[in-house]
């Protein structure tokens, strides 16, 4: 069989589609999923910004009202700075997204860059979140003679956050990045041949 014969087989489906589309269900799905996607794309960064800023604001007001030591203010400032850092990274990411073309190679490069961004964010989570937030929170607890339950709850929360982020890195971000890199390699492998 020659290629023209294969094309004739292929072209049969142009006139006789094998599927029908349930238009009502499709429209409903598109509207719902489109909103969901926009929400999901923003939920991590915006959620983290809101949580850190609110926590920082609460600690700041609490320290001021109680006339606390400088350590209480440090914890508040650390949380607010983390919120600012997340905003800075978000602006950088959005700027980067606009710099890729819309070809398959461009889309793959963008997907790889996004996967690398998420992996890098997860890898450095200890340094930009856990370390500043943890150290200042613990100092605050030492100097404010925190109750026993706080010594369990606060380090426990930080440990849980660390484990969730590491798990996400290993099970989602890194494998996805590797798969995308394989696709990119396959797409471009003969360019330099």
């Amino acid at each position, binding site marked *: 069989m020659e290629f023209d014969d294969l094309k004739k087989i292929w072209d049969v*489906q142009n006139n006789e*589609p094998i599927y*029908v589309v349930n238009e009502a269900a499709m429209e409903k799905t598109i509207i719902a*999923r489109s909103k969901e996607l926009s929400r999901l794309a923003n939920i991590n960064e915006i959620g983290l910004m809101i949580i850190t800023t609110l926590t920082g604001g609460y600690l700041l007001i609490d320290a001021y009202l109680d006339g606390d030591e400088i350590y209480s203010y440090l914890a508040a400032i650390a949380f607010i700075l983390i919120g600012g850092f997340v905003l800075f990274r978000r602006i950088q990411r959005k700027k980067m997204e606009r710099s890729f073309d819309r070809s398959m*190679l461009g889309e793959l490069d963008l997907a790889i860059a996004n996967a690398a961004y998420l992996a890098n964010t997860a890898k450095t989570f200890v340094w930009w979140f856990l370390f500043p937030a943890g150290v200042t929170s613990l100092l605050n607890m030492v100097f404010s003679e925190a109750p026993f339950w706080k010594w369990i709850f606060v380090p426990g929360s930080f440990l849980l956050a660390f484990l969730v982020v590491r798990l996400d890195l290993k099970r989602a971000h890194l494998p996805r990045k590797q798969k995308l890199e394989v696709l990119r390699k396959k*797409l471009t492998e003969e360019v330099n041949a």
Partner: protein
Amino acid sequence: MKEEEQKKIFNGWIKVHSALLFKIVRAYAFNEVDREELFQEITIQLWRSIPSFRGDAAVTTWMYRISLNTALRWAASEQKHRQGVKPIGEIEHVLMEKPNQQDERLSWLYEEIAGLHEIDRSLTLLLLDGFSYKEMAQMLGISESNIGVKLHRIKKYLIDRSKKAKHNGI
């Protein structure tokens, strides 16, 4: 862009070019649940792409580009089969297979395409649908000469396979 206008354009695209989407879905997803999910994913991405469609490219080229990129990302995603956790009866089906529409030769061709690497599958669909090397190069972001090398290999593979096939009307 108003939602009504977007809906009108989208419905027009689907009405005229749905066969294009079916081909991509069938080449990249191999069971009912996956095909349903990939089809939904592609239609969502097409819907979202409408405001940035300026008419510089033909509608089919645009749709192919968005759909193939979506299929590739979907294939690489760890989160596919998201709907697979639901029992099949609970999924509201968007895509329904027509009964008695199976062409054995076409099924054979899809099986051969499914055996190719994801990138080669994209090229095969574009080749079979008659896109030029220039259009493919623009869509994929690689050089025409590279496209030529890859297509030569794919054509040879498909022709060789057809010669070895001894049934299904081939």
